[in-house]
């Protein structure tokens, strides 16, 4: 296998540098009500790692002092962090585009139902992962009963205007393959999701993002145990698309972990590869000038973002042919 940096050299794209910081992504904790088979964070209900009020406050200050277009909140299940509510209301008052990556099914639970109101009231954009529009495939990855609970919450969100044109309330879905293969083109899958969700579930959403499963965390364990690891790596490398490099997510994002440490992306968090810009890699020493022209820390896992039409938290990176 050719190393990722060598591959970048071959297409004259090495070294990989940040271009700006447009997205401020916060992973607010590893605790989750689910234990999905593909989760790169390997989140569980037992995890104790949650972002503190002090770190939230430090993040809020950085956001206020900078003009990032988007605040992107992920986890674990972000709702399981007790400080999320207050943080969202503070950010919303500043009018900053704010995304929460929710598994939605947590909103079925009584103690978390309040977030439906919080999201609606503050115009929070919701991104929710639904691996497949068919019950059996999704439940295979996410656990029995997930699909129905997910659809129940989508129905509630639709009633509030989420996923409906003109409401201003955005519900985007995420597709990731249920197995050791790459996602197809986003328009093709979005069309299929829309057809099935509308006809079979009377459920509606705005857009679908396709995300390639990264060979780390629980998905790596699955690849190993199922004998797919070597072929999956080969598939990722063979599908390397130089056209994705320009728009790689790490080039316009800074990723914060629950302790306030800074990373190039959520995957580097899991691999414990903090930013390499020569300054303190923590929100306490946040330095925009250095960070927005930093050298990105790459590894072979980066093939996951450059395969095919590319993959990011916002879906595909390169235009379909």
């Amino acid at each position, binding site marked *: 296998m050719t190393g990722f940096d060598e591959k970048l050299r071959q297409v004259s794209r090495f070294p990989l540098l940040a271009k700006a910081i447009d997205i401020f992504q916060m992973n607010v904790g590893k605790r989750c009500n689910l234990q999905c088979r593909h989760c790169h964070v390997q989140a569980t209900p037992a995890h104790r790692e949650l972002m503190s009020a002090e770190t939230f406050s430090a993040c809020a200050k950085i956001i206020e002092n900078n003009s990032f277009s988007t605040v992107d909140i992920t986890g674990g299940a972000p709702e399981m962090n007790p400080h999320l509510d207050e943080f969202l209301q503070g950010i919303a008052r500043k009018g900053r585009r704010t995304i929460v990556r929710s598994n939605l099914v947590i909103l079925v639970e009584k103690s978390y139902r309040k977030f439906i109101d919080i999201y609606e009231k503050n115009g929070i954009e919701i991104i929710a992962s639904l691996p497949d529009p*068919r019950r059996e495939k999704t439940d295979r990855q996410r656990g029995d009963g997930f699909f129905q609970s997910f659809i129940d919450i989508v129905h509630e969100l639709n009633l509030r205007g989420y996923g409906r044109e003109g409401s201003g309330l955005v519900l985007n879905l995420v597709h990731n393959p249920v197995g050791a293969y790459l*996602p197809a083109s986003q328009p093709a899958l979005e069309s299929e999701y829309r057809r099935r969700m509308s006809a079979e579930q009377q459920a509606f959403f705005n857009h679908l993002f396709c995300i390639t499963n990264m060979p780390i965390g629980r998905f790596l364990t699955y690849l190993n145990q199922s004998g797919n690891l070597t072929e999956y790596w080969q598939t990722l490398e063979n599908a390397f698309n130089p056209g994705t490099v320009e728009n790689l997510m790490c080039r316009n994002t800074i990723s914060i972990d629950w302790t306030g440490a800074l990373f190039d992306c959520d995957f580097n968090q899991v691999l414990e590869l903090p930013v390499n810009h020569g300054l303190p890699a923590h929100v306490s020493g946040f330095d925009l000038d250095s960070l927005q022209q930093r050298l990105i820390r790459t590894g072979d896992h980066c093939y996951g973002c450059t395969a095919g039409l590319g993959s990011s938290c916002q879906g595909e990176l390169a235009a379909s042919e």
Partner: protein
Amino acid sequence: MADYYEKKDLVDFPLIVEDAKEAGEKFFAYYSQATSAGLLSEREKTLIALAVAATQHCPYCIDAYTNKCLSLGISRQEMMEAVHTGAAMQAGVTLAHATQMRKICTQKEM
């Protein structure tokens, strides 16, 4: 030569252009257009390609198009229906030739 039909052979397929550039490039341009969404969707064309791959016994194409079906969210049951369509066509093509046999028999037998 270690084995025929090795999986890694598929990676070499685009490189056939090296030995006949113009024809190779024209083939791949045609192949790309013919298998991309047009009046038929990408899903429909991919299922057709899978059925043809199975009927033509091409392990490379079966591999490529099974993976593409999975990527497109096509279920195993839908793939199997497509392969049955191909199998039925092959059986039908075989049996339709029995009409030639019947015609000759009718002509020749007293």
